[in-house]
C-alpha cells in the first residue's frame, strides 16, 4: 500500500523587506522536494526571492468556533487607540 506524500505549507517572500506570506500548499515527500516543488508551483514568474516550507501538521490553527473568546475582548479596549485621548487641536506633532 502506498503512503501519501505529506502536505506542506508554502511561504514566499516576494521581495526583501517584506515578510514571507502564505502562498498555498502542496504535497512532497520531504522538505527538499517541497522547496523544489514550491519553486515550480508558486514562483514561476519571479513572485519571490525566498521560500519557507513547513509541514502542515506542524501548524496549529485557532478554531473559528473560539473566535468570540479569542478576539472579542479587544473590541471594548478602545483606550489602546490614539483617538481615545482628547487633546486640544493646537497640539501639534502628536
Amino acid at each position, binding site marked *: 500500500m502506498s503512503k501519501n506524500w505529506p502536505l506542506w505549507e508554502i511561504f514566499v517572500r516576494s521581495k*526583501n*523587506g517584506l515578510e514571507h506570506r502564505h502562498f498555498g500548499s502542496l504535497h512532497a515527500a520531504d522538505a527538499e522536494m517541497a522547496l523544489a516543488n514550491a519553486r515550480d508551483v508558486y514562483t514561476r514568474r519571479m513572485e519571490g526571492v525566498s521560500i519557507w516550507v513547513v509541514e502542515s501538521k506542524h501548524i496549529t490553527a485557532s478554531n473559528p468556533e473560539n473566535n468570540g473568546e479569542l478576539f472579542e475582548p479587544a473590541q471594548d479596549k478602545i483606550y*489602546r487607540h490614539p483617538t481615545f*485621548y482628547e*487633546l486640544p487641536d493646537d497640539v501639534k506633532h*502628536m
Partner: protein
Amino acid sequence: MEKDVKNPRSERSRSLEEIFEARIARDEKIEPKDWMPEKYRKTHIRQMSQHAHSEIIGMLPEGNWITRAPSLRRKAALLAKVQDEAGHGLYLYSACETLGISRDELYEQLHSGKAKYSSIFNYPTVTWADMGAIGWLVDGAAIINQVPLCNTSFGPYARAMVRVCKEESFHQRQGYEIMLKLCNGTPEQKEMAQDALNRWWWPSLMMLGPTDDKSVHTEQSMKWKLKRKTNDELRQQFIDQTVPQADILGLTIPDPDLKRNEETGHYDFGEIDWEEFWQVVKGHGPCNKKRMKARVDAWENGAWVRDAAMAYAEKQEKKNLKKAI
C-alpha cells in the same frame, strides 16, 4: 598600488562587501539569510538587543504606578501601555534572534550587565505626574528615534519598528492627556506636573544620545540606515516640537537658556550635563541597581513556572504518543 600583493580571499570579501553596501545604498533590504559583513551582524545584535532590553526594563518605572492610578480610565490606559512595551521587547528580541543569537544569551547579557538599556529608565517615578511626563517626553523622544528606523536596512528590524511605531502613537497622547488634566486642575496638581517636567526634561534630551562630536558610530550607522539623522538633529527636532506643547500646558521648561532663534527658526537651548549621563550609563544612576534586581528577580522567581509549563507539555506529548500507538 601595482605592488600590492593580491590576496584572493580578501579581494573576494571586499567585493562582497562592496556589493552589500551598494544594495543598502539602493534602499534594498537585507534579510537574515543574506550574506552580511560580521560587523553588520554584530552591530545589529547590539543595537536591537539594547532596544529590546530598554522596552523590557522600561516597563518597571511605569509599572510602579499601575495599582495606584487615580481612576479606572487611567489604570486601563497605563496597563495597556505597559503591556505594549512588553510586546515591543518581544518583537525586537525575536528580530534579533534571526541573526543567530539565542534568547537565553540575550537575557544573560542583560542580567549580567554586559548589555545596556536606555539609561532614562534608571530614574525614579515618584509621583503620578511622572506617568504623564514619561508618556509625553520619554515616549515622545523614543518616537523621534524610532520612526526613521521603520526604513532601516535590516528587514526584520524595519518590520518590527513599523508595528512598534503604530502602537506607540497612543502612548504619547495618554501621557500628554495626564499632563493636561493636572495642569487644568488644582494649583497643587499643576505644581506636580511642573515638578515632573523639571525632573524628566534633561534626561529626555540625553535619551537622543551623545552629541555628534562624541558619537563614534554615526557615520557607519548612517550608511546602514540605522540612523537617518544625527543625534543633535534629532534632539533639535524633539525640542522644537515639544516646547510649543509645554506652552499649551502652561508649564515652564527648566532651561533658562531656552529661546527661539528667529534666524534659524529653531530653539537654542542650554548646556546638557553629560557628566550625569555618563554616570548613569556606568551604573551610578538613582535606580540602576533597583531595576536590575527587579528584572533578575522576576526572571529567577518565574523559573518554576517555565519549568512547569515545559513538564506539562512533555507529559501531553507522551500521552498523545501513547494514544497514537
